[in-house]
C-alpha cells in the first residue's frame, strides 16, 4: 500500500496538503495522481482530450500525459469498454468515461457478459482492472438519457464492483482505489454534486477501504437514513430538519452498492430501530429493496417499523420540468420518517 504522501513526494518532493475542491475537480486530481503513480493507467472516452470531458473532469490530463494515455475514442460506447477489456489483458489499467448514464447501455453487453466474467471465465488467469466512470443522477435540468441512475442493473451482475462517492474527499480517494483494484469497478459520479465543494486531503492514504466500507456520516439515535452518492446530501438535510423536530437521525453513506456493507447498516438499525433508504433510482427492484430485505432479516426484533424506501418511481426518468417532483426530496424523506414513527 502506498500513501498519497509517498506518491506526491516522488513527483513534487513535498506533501500536497489540503485544498478546497469541487467533487468534479477531486475526481480530476485523483485521476492525475493515479496516472502519475502508474504509467499503465490510461483514460478512454468521448471528448475527454482537449475538451476535458463535457463535465471537464479530465481537464488538463491529455496535456500532461499525452494522447496515448488520454484517448479521445470513436463515438461508440461498446467499443470503449470492449477495447478496454483487451487493453487490460495486455497489462493496462483503462479508465473509461461514459459521457452520461443513459449512454452506458450500448456498452451494457460488454460490461455484463465480458468485463464482469473474464476473471471467472479464465479461472482467475486473467484480471481486467477496468474502471467505468459514469456521471449519473438527476437534478441538472437535462434532456432524456442524461439524468438516470442505473446502478442496480450492474450491482445485479456478479464480477462487478459498484461504488459512488458523495464527497470531494471520497471522490479523490475512491477513484484511486477503484483504479488500483484488480476487479472491474463501475464508478458512479453524482453529476448533480460535481460543483459541490469540500476539503480534500491530497495526502490521504490510498488503500482499498472506501470500496466496500460504508461510513456513518452523522451519528443519531432515533432513525437510520441510508443513502449513497447524491442522496447523502438529501439525507443530511433531512437529519437537520429532524433535529429541529427533536428527532435524532443517523446517516449512513453506503459508498458501495456492490459489495454492500450490510454490517454497518445493521449495527446502526439495531440501535435506532428504524430505517429509511434513499436513492434516486426507482425503488422497484432498486438497491433499497436489497437493504430492506437484509435489514429485516437481521434486525427483525429490533425494528420498530418496516424498512421504508424513498426514491424514483417506476416511470421513465421524467422531463426536466418535473424532475424535482420525482427525485427524493427532504419532504418525501421526512414523510417516510413520520410513517416510520407512526408504527
Amino acid at each position: 500500500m502506498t500513501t498519497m504522501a509517498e506518491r506526491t513526494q516522488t513527483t513534487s518532493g513535498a506533501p500536497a496538503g489540503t485544498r478546497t475542491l469541487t467533487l468534479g475537480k477531486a475526481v480530476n486530481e485523483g485521476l492525475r495522481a493515479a496516472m502519475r503513480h502508474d504509467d499503465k493507467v490510461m483514460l478512454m472516452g468521448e471528448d475527454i482530450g482537449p475538451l476535458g470531458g463535457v463535465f471537464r473532469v479530465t481537464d488538463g490530463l491529455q496535456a500532461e500525459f499525452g494522447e496515448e494515455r488520454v484517448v479521445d475514442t470513436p463515438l461508440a460506447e461498446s467499443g470503449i469498454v470492449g477495447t478496454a477489456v483487451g487493453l487490460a489483458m495486455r497489462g493496462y489499467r483503462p479508465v473509461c468515461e461514459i459521457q452520461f448514464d443513459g449512454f452506458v447501455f450500448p456498452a451494457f453487453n460488454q460490461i455484463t457478459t465480458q468485463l464482469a466474467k473474464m476473471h471467472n471465465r479464465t479461472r482467475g488467469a486473467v484480471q481486467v482492472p477496468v474502471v467505468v466512470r459514469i456521471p449519473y443522477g438527476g437534478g441538472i435540468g437535462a434532456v432524456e438519457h442524461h439524468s438516470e441512475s442505473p446502478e442496480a442493473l450492474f450491482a445485479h451482475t456478479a464480477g462487478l464492483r459498484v461504488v459512488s462517492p458523495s464527497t470531494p474527499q471520497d471522490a479523490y480517494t475512491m477513484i484511486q482505489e477503484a483504479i488500483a483494484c484488480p476487479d472491474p469497478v463501475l464508478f458512479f459520479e453524482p453529476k448533480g454534486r460535481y460543483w459541490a465543494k469540500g476539503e480534500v486531503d491530497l495526502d490521504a492514504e490510498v488503500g482499498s477501504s472506501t470500496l466496500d466500507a460504508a461510513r456513518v456520516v452523522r451519528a443519531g439515535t432515533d432513525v437510520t437514513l441510508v443513502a449513497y452518492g447524491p442522496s447523502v446530501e438529501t439525507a443530511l438535510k433531512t437529519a437537520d430538519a429532524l433535529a429541529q423536530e427533536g428527532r435524532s437521525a443517523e446517516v449512513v453513506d453506503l459508498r458501495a452498492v456492490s459489495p454492500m456493507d450490510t454490517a454497518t447498516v445493521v449495527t446502526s438499525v439495531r440501535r435506532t430501530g428504524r430505517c429509511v433508504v434513499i436513492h434516486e433510482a426507482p425503488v422497484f427492484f432498486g438497491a433499497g429493496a436489497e437493504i430492506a430485505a437484509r435489514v429485516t432479516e437481521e434486525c427483525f426484533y429490533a425494528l420498530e417499523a418496516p424498512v421504508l424506501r424513498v426514491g424514483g418511481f417506476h416511470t421513465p426518468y421524467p422531463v426536466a420540468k418535473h424532475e424535482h417532483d420525482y427525485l427524493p426530496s427532504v419532504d418525501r424523506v421526512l414523510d417516510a420518517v413520520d410513517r416510520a414513527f407512526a408504527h
Partner: protein
Amino acid sequence: MTTTNGSNEAIPTLQLLDPEGRRVTTRGTKGYRDRAAALTAEDLRGMYRDMVLTRRFDDEATSLQRQGELALYAPSRGQEAAQVGSAYALRPQDFVFPSYREHGVLQVRGVDTVDRLRFFRGSDHGGWNPNEHNAQVYTVVIGAHTLHAVGYAMGVQRDGTPHDATDGTAVITYFGDGATSQGDVNEAMVYATVNQAPVVFFLQNNQWAISEPTTRQTRTPLYRRGEAFGMPSLRVDGNDVLAVYAATQEAMERARRGEGPSFIEAFTYRMGAHTTSDDPTRYRTTDQEEVWRRRDPIDRLAALLRAEKELDDDYVAEVQQSADELGVRLRAGVRALDGGAPVSTFEDVYATPHGVVASERAWYEAYEAGDPPADQYAIAETAQGGAR
C-alpha cells in the same frame, strides 16, 4: 478463381491450390505464391497432420456429445484449411482471439485437446490459461471478442514492441459471417483503423449462421466490409491452405511492421451442423453439401503432397496412429472432467474479497456440511467483516 454468391456476382478470390490439389499460377499472385513456395515439405506435412488431427478431434467430440459426455459441440469440419493455414502464419508472440469454433487454430497453438472441450463438457467456462498459449478462451457472445482483440492490439502499440515483420507482435481475431452483422465487429473495425492497430480480422465465411445463409447478412461480398473501413482486404479460397497461409502471413507481417490492420475473408463451408443441437436438413440441401464435400480441404492438400511425392503411406499411417491416440486420450480425459467441487462456483468471481460472495459461500459451506445456520445473515455478516 472466381466464385459466386447469391447475386451471381463474380468475386475475386485468391487461390493457390485448385480443388484437385494442383498449384495455380494466376497473374498477380506471385507474392503469395512465393510465400507458399517458402513452405517446406515438412511444413506442408505438418499442416496436413494438424488438419487431420483437427478433423479427428471434431469426430471424437461429436461422438462424445452423442454419448451424453458433452453438453454441446460446435464442429469445424470443412474449415480446417482456413484455421490451420492461418494459424501457421502466426508467431509465438502473436495473440489469438477466437470465436468458439477455432479448434484447428488451437490445435496449432498447442492448446491441450482435453482443455479445448472443458467448455463444451460444462466443467469450465473457459478451459485454459490464455497467457500460456497467447490464445484467448472461446467467446460465445457473437463478435464481442473482436473488440478485445483490437484493445489488446492497442496495448501492443503502447508497449513499444519493435516494428518488424518477424519480431513485432500482431493480434488476430476469428469470427464468422453472422458476426459481421454485429455492432461490436463493426465498432472493432472502426477502432482498429482509427488507431492503425496491429490486428488482423479473419472472417471465416462458412456461408451459414446457424440456419441463415449469407444473403441474410449482406448484399455485398463480405471482404469489402474491411475495405470500407479503410484497411487492406482480401478474399481467399478458405479451403486452400496455401492461399490462407500466404494471405494471413502477409497481413500479420503488415501488422507487426506497424502498418495497421487487415481484413481477410476465407470463403469456406461449414460441412457439419452449427452445433450438435442443430439440424441442417431443415434449411439446406444435400446437393449443396455434396458440392462442398468435393472441395474438402484435407483431400486437396493430400492431393498436392501426393503429386509432389511428399506424402507416402507410411506418413499417412503415422498420422492415423496419432489420431487414434488423440481419440483414446480425449475420450478418457473428457470423461474425467467433473468441474471440481460445487463450492468452486464461488471462486474467481472477483480477484479481491467481495462481501456478498464471501457470505454466501460461508453459508453454503455450512449448509453442505449439514449444519445450516439458524441465522443466515449472522454468518454472512461475520464473513463480510472477515473479508474486509
